[in-house]
């Protein structure tokens, strides 16, 4: 603003011509795409010409994206049941993964060589093999170990035993496969978070007489959370979609349900879009959750926590309002 504080001087901003042209081009492409979304095309065009002749072809039109079908099947019972299975698998596999990941990360950083060795081996094995194979392995574990038992090793004295197939039913095998694989990845995320916390924090905690466990619980982990949460959001959303692999175990999740419907109506495109829309809806909700979780754990790390979208909107409105006032010549705090 001006130095005198009273007579307002007009400021002419730089004109970004290239930016305007770019915007026009992008707008054009968006308009074209949106048009395809809401346009209809001849259904089975070629055969139409042969059978009905050119003029009658206009009669048979269909939504290019098959919105009618998507809408029709959107809340279909099978689809919703599949969605619930997908959500259950995501939640359970992530819980297993997160608990394992935290434990393994802590083991990995332990001074105890046995613990860190076990942790390293686990990560090496489960991160180094395809999750697809791991899923199959748990699904067909009975092939390797038909029964599990608690008793004295290398004898036939058992306290308790059960058949592999009774526990590793497809749904449980899916959770085991996905969860164990996730744990390996998640342990590295947790480890990076733990390493990121300043050494001085640990020293200060230790110098108060805290044990290693207390230091971890009250000082290091809460601060590591800030680093851990963004990639965790990533993992949850990734898991949401990885669960679709359970089809190899004949578990009917969202994509499985969609597959079943495709088998009936032979309309793969609209049905796959339908599944994608559901995945998008869930991942959007998860992202919103992530934002608030991050905000919570930013406590103490930032002087001012990031604004929520609603707060930001209010601020923008206030900003526009004050700009409007200056244009009318009413001095605002910006001109002092």
């Amino acid at each position: 603003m001006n130095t005198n504080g009273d007579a307002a001087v007009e400021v002419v901003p730089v004109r970004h011509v290239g930016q305007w042209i770019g915007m026009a081009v992008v707008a054009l492409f968006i308009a074209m795409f949106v048009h395809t979304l809401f346009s209809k095309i001849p259904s089975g065009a070629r055969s139409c010409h042969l059978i009905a002749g050119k003029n009658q072809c206009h009669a048979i039109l269909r939504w290019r994206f098959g919105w009618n079908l998507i809408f029709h099947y959107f809340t279909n019972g099978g689809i919703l049941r599949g969605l619930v299975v997908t959500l259950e698998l995501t939640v359970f596999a992530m819980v297993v993964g997160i608990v394992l990941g935290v434990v393994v990360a802590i083991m990995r950083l332990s001074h105890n060589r046995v613990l860190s060795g076990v942790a390293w081996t686990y990560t090496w094995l489960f991160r180094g093999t395809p999750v697809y194979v791991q899923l199959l392995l748990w699904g067909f574990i009975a092939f390797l170990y038909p029964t599990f038992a608690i008793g004295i090793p290398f004898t036939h004295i058992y306290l308790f035993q059960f058949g592999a197939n009774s526990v590793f039913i497809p749904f449980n095998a899916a959770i085991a496969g996905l969860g164990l694989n996730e744990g390996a990845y998640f342990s590295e995320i947790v480890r990076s978070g733990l390493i990121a916390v300043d050494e001085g924090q640990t020293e200060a905690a230790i110098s108060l007489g805290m044990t290693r466990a207390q230091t971890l619980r009250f000082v290091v982990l809460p601060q590591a959370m800030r680093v851990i949460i963004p990639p965790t959001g990533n993992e949850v959303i990734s898991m949401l979609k990885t669960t679709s692999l359970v089809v190899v175990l004949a578990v009917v999740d969202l994509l499985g349900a969609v597959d079943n419907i495709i088998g009936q109506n032979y309309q793969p495109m609209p049905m796959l879009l339908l599944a994608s829309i559901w995945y998008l809806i869930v991942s959007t909700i998860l992202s919103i959750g992530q934002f608030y979780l991050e905000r919570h754990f930013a406590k103490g790390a930032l002087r001012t926590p990031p604004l929520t979208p609603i707060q930001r909107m209010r601020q923008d409105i206030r900003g526009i309002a004050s700009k409007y006032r200056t244009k009318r010549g009413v001095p605002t705090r910006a001109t002092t």
Partner: protein
Amino acid sequence: MVEARGVHKSYVGVEVLKGVDLTVERGEVTCLIGPSGSGKSTLLRCINHLEKVDAGELRVDGELVGYEARGDKLYELNDRRICHERSQIGMVFQRFNLFQNLNVLENITVGPTKVKEINAEQAKKTARELLARVGLEGKEKNYPTQLSGGQQQRVAIARALAMEPKLMLFDEPTSALDPELVGEVLDVMKDLARSGMTMIVVTHEMGFAKEVADSVYFLDQGVIEESGDPKAVLTSPSSPRLQSFLSKVL
């Protein structure tokens, strides 16, 4: 209170302490001075068992730090015993090291409630008294990032005092502060010294050493070059190393 005899300490290949002797009586304030890399901080960290001594004898309140002598052997203490030893020694760091995830009050109460298992209300009451003592009433709910360096360091002192230590160690407590904030921290420390607390202070504040300390040790390259009454040591040093060091510092 603290007794060091021929303390040696090496990090990978570098010998940092080469046989240090030190005696600190109860209620005394001792300042460790010397150029960076001379081993002052390492000696301090050994006293708190943040570092392990390689050779020599280090006793706090008559007890070996980190070891127990039985017969003619030294037995390493387990983690629990070491934690207990540390809980009786307060430490203040150059970089404050306040717990970033906790507010001022929680920073001070976390030690007493978790380590000494004092009840929360009692701990809070003590914490408020300590905050008043370091001149920070009303800052209870603030997070460390919202405080100035001087304020953070005063909270750090209060945090250490909350454990009711028998010995306080200060590792260059004012080195990370703006010059105008140094005074407020030194004032708290002087007040503490007057109250009869046993203190070992690694510092570059010669004025503080001269005014408050009962004895001064000058370390250079891992050995104690000169020690004694601060006024004598700091005004008429006998070793050429200390003479040249003081000429640069003052």
